[in-house]
């Protein structure tokens, strides 16, 4: 006799928190039972998450919980051992990083990865690689399309840089920028690839409180401007609680809590993960 399937294990849209405005739309991201093993070690297991079209979500957890690994799975830096990732309803199974980016996921990196020897503007233009295109021949022979699209690319790059007031730095070398500016440039570059889902890996790391406050405003501004979903990994709780509508907490590769900021702050499992077990008095 067949065991009745547990509805929860088949697929439960275990949403972090989908804001009301997104409720009737297809979620931009659905991760179902996602997992990966490295050798015998399970880094992430049974990860379920649904993100609304214009949601800002947070992914938090102690160091080594597997947060960046989740980003690497979503962007196919690693191919998942188990589970499914649907992006706007499309199964990304077997896709490469490049294909997933073309489909709409862009990201930043925990350890900043800019094109250091190139200028700020070139970094942003590289982000537009697949949105503003002309062939190599057209580029080498400088045919009309080259001039037309380079002009558009330049204007768009300036527009994107203006979100962070970075137009003035357009000709500076990316590697020579201060730390905070490098983090912001990574976000601009990711936005340049025209994503529908933006993954930010510790965007506030190394920023001072006023920069962080500004970043918080900017994250909201980006969402409102582009109508995209944003997931961020962050250790700065002020930022996470201030900007995220839904939060998902990871510990030892497993989801231990989901909900809105108030729910998460009151969740005993989360408190235990961060502060350790309360001693019974």
């Amino acid at each position, binding site marked *: 006799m067949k065991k009745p399937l547990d509805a929860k294990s088949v697929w439960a849209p275990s949403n972090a928190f989908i804001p009301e405005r997104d409720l009737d739309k297809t979620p931009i991201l659905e991760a179902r039972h996602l997992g990966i093993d490295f050798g015998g070690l399970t880094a992430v297991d049974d990860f379920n998450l649904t993100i609304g079209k214009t949601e800002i979500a947070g992914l938090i957890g102690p160091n080594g919980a597997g947060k*960046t690994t989740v980003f690497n799975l979503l962007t196919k830096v690693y191919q998942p051992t188990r589970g499914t990732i649907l992006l706007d309803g499309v199964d990304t199974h077997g896709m490469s990083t490049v294909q997933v980016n073309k489909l709409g996921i862009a990201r930043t990196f925990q350890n900043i990865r800019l094109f250091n020897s190139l200028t700020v503007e070139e970094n942003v233009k590289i982000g537009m690689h697949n949105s503003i295109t002309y062939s190599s021949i057209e580029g080498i022979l400088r045919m009309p399309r080259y001039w037309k699209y380079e002009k558009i690319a330049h204007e768009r790059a300036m527009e994107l840089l203006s979100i962070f007031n970075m137009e003035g730095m357009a000709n500076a070398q990316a590697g020579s920028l201060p730390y905070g500016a490098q983090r912001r440039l990574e976000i601009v570059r990711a936005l340049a690839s025209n994503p529908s889902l933006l993954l930010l890996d510790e965007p506030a790391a190394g920023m001072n409180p006023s920069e962080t406050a500004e970043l918080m405003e900017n994250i909201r501004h980006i969402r409102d401007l582009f109508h995209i979903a944003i997931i961020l990994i962050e250790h700065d709780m002020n930022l996470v609680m201030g900007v995220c509508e839904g939060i998902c907490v990871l510990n030892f590769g497993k989801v231990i809590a989901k909900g809105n900021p108030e729910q998460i702050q009151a969740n005993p499992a989360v408190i235990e993960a961060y502060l350790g077990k309360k001693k019974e008095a």
Partner: protein
Amino acid sequence: MVFLSYLISGISLGSVYAMIALGYTMVYGIAKMLNFAHGDVIMVGGYVSLIAMTSWGLPVWAAVVVAMVACTVLGVVIEGLAYRPLRSAPSLAVLITAIGVSYFLQNSAQLIFSPNPKSYPVIINGSLSLFGGKLTISYISLVTFLVCVIIMIALTLFTSRSKMGKAMRAVSEDKGAAQLMGINVNRTISMTFAIGSALAAVAGVFLCSSYTTLMPTTGSMPGIKAFTAAVFGGIGSIPGAFLGGLLLGIIEAMAKAYISTNISNAIVFAVLIVVLLVRPAGLLGKYVPEKV
């Protein structure tokens, strides 16, 4: 029987490659640089041992010791003058400097010893006759192989057991961290060059003895092939260099015997390419993916 004799000459040739490759792999593993002047240190070893034997009338073993001392000094001096100032420079700058050193050694040798080939004595005569004379193994082949095995084992023990050897492995993993742990990085790298150059001297004696000639460019091609051998076996790995050298020698001997002398090098290099495509880090090398 014919096959066996080709195999033996391949092993003998391969042992020489392996000795040179061991030096390459040590320097690459620890200093992370392609020392293209290594082949020319072999040539210097050849000339020094030749002078020691013919002009000073020293016995073979003493000539080898003299050559080792001379090459060790040479290696340390090269490292100190040309490579040490470039420790933090891009690897290509160091590569070009190594090429400059290689040109320097070759042209100095040309000025001192003239570009004409000199004949080099066979250091060990006689051969072992097996199967009623059907198969002969020259003593020099045997000695070359044995010396190579001994060196390989000694180096493996040295790097895994001795304090200096452990320091070398630490420097090879992370120079900065090794320095913080109180390891003198410069001295460790010097030591590596000293060992590599001493090995080059030994290899030089065996190489010249099997070629029976010596000229300023003698070291170049074996140097390139030994480098290939080191990559073949997985660069940075001591048993890998040994295995790579032997295989390279055997493939070369077989290609010469059964296919063609005209394209034996092409075959050797083609095999290398195939091996690298199947195992991108060489036979015994470790492939470390980049962390995101």
